[in-house]
């Protein structure tokens, strides 16, 4: 009897955990998409008006976004921190070089990456920890070859396009949240209860 109770508790606990983590992921996606849009808006203004170096612009964007998106953008900023010569508004400047920097957030080995590679690695490292889908991350990844590598206006156009796509993805994510949140939260719990009942 005691074994049955413990087993039932374990099944119910696991089912509840699965349900709540699914629901958290579902409800976190619209927020993170919104945060990403805010970050891109900040990045756009830094590129258009601030002429800020790209790592610093990314740090500002991260501060505006907050949460896990901030971690992703900060990581990208840290990885490219050594590229001091590449500013966000640089036109036609190759961004592959890695000159030394006095930035304290520079990786210990001092190896700076190109903006493209830095963003790609940051997405790879932090993407799975966010609630974003691969399609959402692909929108961000599409910016990787553009940032710091093309002209100011070109970068701005790409950032505006990315924001537009993210707005569409956010609307879809909100519709999905409304539709599936209850099912995701309570479905596994009820299925767990059914399993416990059938096996008892």
């Amino acid at each position, binding site marked *: 009897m005691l074994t049955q109770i413990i087993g039932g508790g374990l099944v119910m606990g696991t089912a509840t955990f699965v349900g709540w983590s699914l629901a958290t992921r579902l409800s976190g996606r619209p927020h993170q998409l919104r945060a990403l849009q805010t970050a891109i808006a900040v990045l756009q203004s830094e590129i258009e008006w601030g002429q800020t170096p790209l790592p610093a612009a990314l740090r500002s964007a991260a501060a505006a976004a907050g949460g896990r998106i901030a971690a992703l953008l900060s990581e990208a900023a840290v990885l490219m921190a050594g590229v001091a010569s590449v500013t966000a508004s640089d036109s036609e400047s190759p961004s592959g070089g890695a000159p030394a920097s006095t930035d304290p957030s520079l990786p210990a080995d001092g190896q700076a990456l190109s903006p493209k590679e830095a963003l790609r690695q940051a997405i790879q490292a932090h993407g799975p920890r966010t609630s974003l889908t691969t399609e959402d991350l692909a929108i961000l990844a599409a910016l990787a070859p553009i940032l710091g590598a093309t002209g100011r206006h070109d970068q701005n156009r790409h950032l505006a396009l990315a924001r537009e796509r993210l707005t569409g993805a956010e609307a879809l994510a909100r519709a999905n949240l409304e*539709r599936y949140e209850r*099912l995701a939260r309570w479905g596994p719990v009820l299925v767990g209860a*059914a399993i416990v*009942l059938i096996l008892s």
Partner: protein
Amino acid sequence: MEIYDLLKIAGIGIIVSLVGSLLSQAGRKEQESLFTLMGFMIVMMMVVGLMTKFFAAVQTFAR
């Protein structure tokens, strides 16, 4: 047959109807039908088991 068996069947019925309503809210009509059918099959298997026990008891009594 104990009261426990009846409660078990009732519990499964309640859970199946709750999951069914969740699925229908989510617009998953096909999955709802499948889930309801699955619940029905499980309950039927239980009922068949109970009926088998009942007829076996009647046979033993008649001998």
